[in-house]
């Protein structure tokens, strides 16, 4: 396809109600390649998504047009840089429904965002005898920062177990919450089961005891509408690269009341007010938490990526992802030897499975030879895999450009596993 045609399409997203994954995939040049002699079928979107031309072009243009440091300098390029950076912040603010732009802190990714909350808020607000609650569904990046915080502060980490289906056990959560609970850290959508957490109920439980709620939105922000005010969460973290944007940029949303409780974490340029030899005062949020030269080109790419998502419409994306996930679960369940891992009530975007006694890595390599890219491993969610009693799973995960034909290609390729392993 001609570049001009592709760009025109990207700039004119499909009219509402006329969703076409086939058409959207033309916006993603990386999808037009062959792997193992077959067209690439990219089903590892929970790890990272491919990027549309609008994002690729915006990042390249940032360099071509001339780059400058953000919020430093008064020349034209510097002003342009600051405006572009704040435009991205405004875009992210609207995407997640934050009340104020200052509640959106740019980080290097979701992991950095959660760590920022754990250090800047946790070290100030959590002390000996306090409790933090996480769940067995959490990605290591929403477990280990809390483990470390508890070690530093003499607090206790409680991990909520899962039901047989792999859902967060709300009764156990309710029973574990107490006046000592300072924060509950929970994923919005599981990167193993694809289950959407019942955040409304979890949020209500947190409020009953006055605990803060941090939501890991890494798998959610590009799949469904997010409204941090409706969720009544205190923190919401996500990364850009799982939402069609560049790597190295992410967001920590922190509600204003929490921002006031947070001490500076990384210190350096761009986050100070007045510097004295012995004592300094610090800028207010968000600059207070964005020490050092920010990732401007990352923010510019994220701006375009979130614009692209918003133009499709997150309601539309959610419907697409749910339907495709349902189709995939049904199709995979019909494959002899396949066992789905987890049976969440509301799966979206992700399905994990094992294939007989053939190791996930062997299956993944064989699928790759047919052009099908899936993830094999523990998905940085060791507690969830222990719960399901497996060392590794295969994981197919979907994006706006995936079609039922991609799922069918996966099912067909699984047939080749039997050819090798009998």
């Amino acid at each position, binding site marked *: 396809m001609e570049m001009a045609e592709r760009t025109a399409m990207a700039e004119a997203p499909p009219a509402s109600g006329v969703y076409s994954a086939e058409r959207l995939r033309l916006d993603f040049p990386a999808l037009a390649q062959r792997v193992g002699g077959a067209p690439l079928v990219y089903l590892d979107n929970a790890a990272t998504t491919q990027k549309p031309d609008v994002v690729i072009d915006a990042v390249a243009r940032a360099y071509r047009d001339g780059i400058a440091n953000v919020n430093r300098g008064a020349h034209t390029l510097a002003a342009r840089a600051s405006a572009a950076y704040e435009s991205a912040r405004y875009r992210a603010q609207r995407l997640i429904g934050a009340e104020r732009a200052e509640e959106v802190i740019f980080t290097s990714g979701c992991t950095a965002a959660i760590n920022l909350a754990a250090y800047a808020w946790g070290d100030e607000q959590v002390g000996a005898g306090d409790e933090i609650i996480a769940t067995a569904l959490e990605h290591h990046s929403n477990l280990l920062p809390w483990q470390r915080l508890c070690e530093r502060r003499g607090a206790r980490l409680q991990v909520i177990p899962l039901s047989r289906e792999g859902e967060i056990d709300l009764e156990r959560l309710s029973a574990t919450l107490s006046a000592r609970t300072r924060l509950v850290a929970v994923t919005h959508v599981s990167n193993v089961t694809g289950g959407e957490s019942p955040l409304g109920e979890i949020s209500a439980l947190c409020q009953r005891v006055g605990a803060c709620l941090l939501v890991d939105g890494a798998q959610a922000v590009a799949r469904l509408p997010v409204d941090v005010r409706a969720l009544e969460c205190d923190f919401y973290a996500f990364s850009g690269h799982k939402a069609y944007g560049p790597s190295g940029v992410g967001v920590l949303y922190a509600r204003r009341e929490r921002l006031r409780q947070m001490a500076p974490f990384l210190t350096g340029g761009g986050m100070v007010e007045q510097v004295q030899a012995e004592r300094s005062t610090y800028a207010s949020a968000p600059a207070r938490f964005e020490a050092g030269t920010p990732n401007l080109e990352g923010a510019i790419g994220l701006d375009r990526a979130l614009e692209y998502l918003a133009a499709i419409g997150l309601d539309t994306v959610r419907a697409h992802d749910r339907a495709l996930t349902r189709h995939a679960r049904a199709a995979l369940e019909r494959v002899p030897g396949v066992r789905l891992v987890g049976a969440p009530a509301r799966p979206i975007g992700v399905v994990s499975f094992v294939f007989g006694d053939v*190791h996930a890595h062997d299956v993944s*390599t064989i699928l790759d*030879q047919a052009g099908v890219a899936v993830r094999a491993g523990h998905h940085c969610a060791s507690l969830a895999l222990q719960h399901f009693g497996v060392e590794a799973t295969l994981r197919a995960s979907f994006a706006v450009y995936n079609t039922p034909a991609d799922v069918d290609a996966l099912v067909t390729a699984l047939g080749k596993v039997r050819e090798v392993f009998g």
Partner: protein
Amino acid sequence: MSELGKLYPDVLLDHHRAPRHSGRLPSPTHLADGHNPLCGDRVAVTLALGGGRVIDIRCEVKGCAICRAAGSMMAEAVVGRELGEVGALLSRFLSALAQPDAASSAPGDADGAREASAATADPTGASEWGPLAALLEARRFPNRRRCASLSWEILERALASPNGG
């Protein structure tokens, strides 16, 4: 031979299905275990060393086909051998496996480039490696190299760490 046929040749599948020297020695002189955190593969190597030789070896593997076959083929390759020979083979194998493979990192469609087999591209030649040549094919799958190397790495640690030490 197809790409898959190269990664999973019959000799490798045979070792995967019926691993030799599997399990653990009841009273080893040397042992080590370890795992690949990426995929959870686990390997335990127990050795009975004496008279400057590997008198006996058991390799216990929980993992993928390549990892299982690697443990079996490694044990078969070193049992009865002099320690000096074992150390040399181990180093030679790990460095051959670590060699960059131009074909696998070629951009775009690597099908054509991949036609060059790792064994034939290797100046030392397949014949020198015997059955281990099959393991070296993992070189062309960068994310699978560790599956082929893990048992050798654990062997190296076992040789260096006497039981109880």
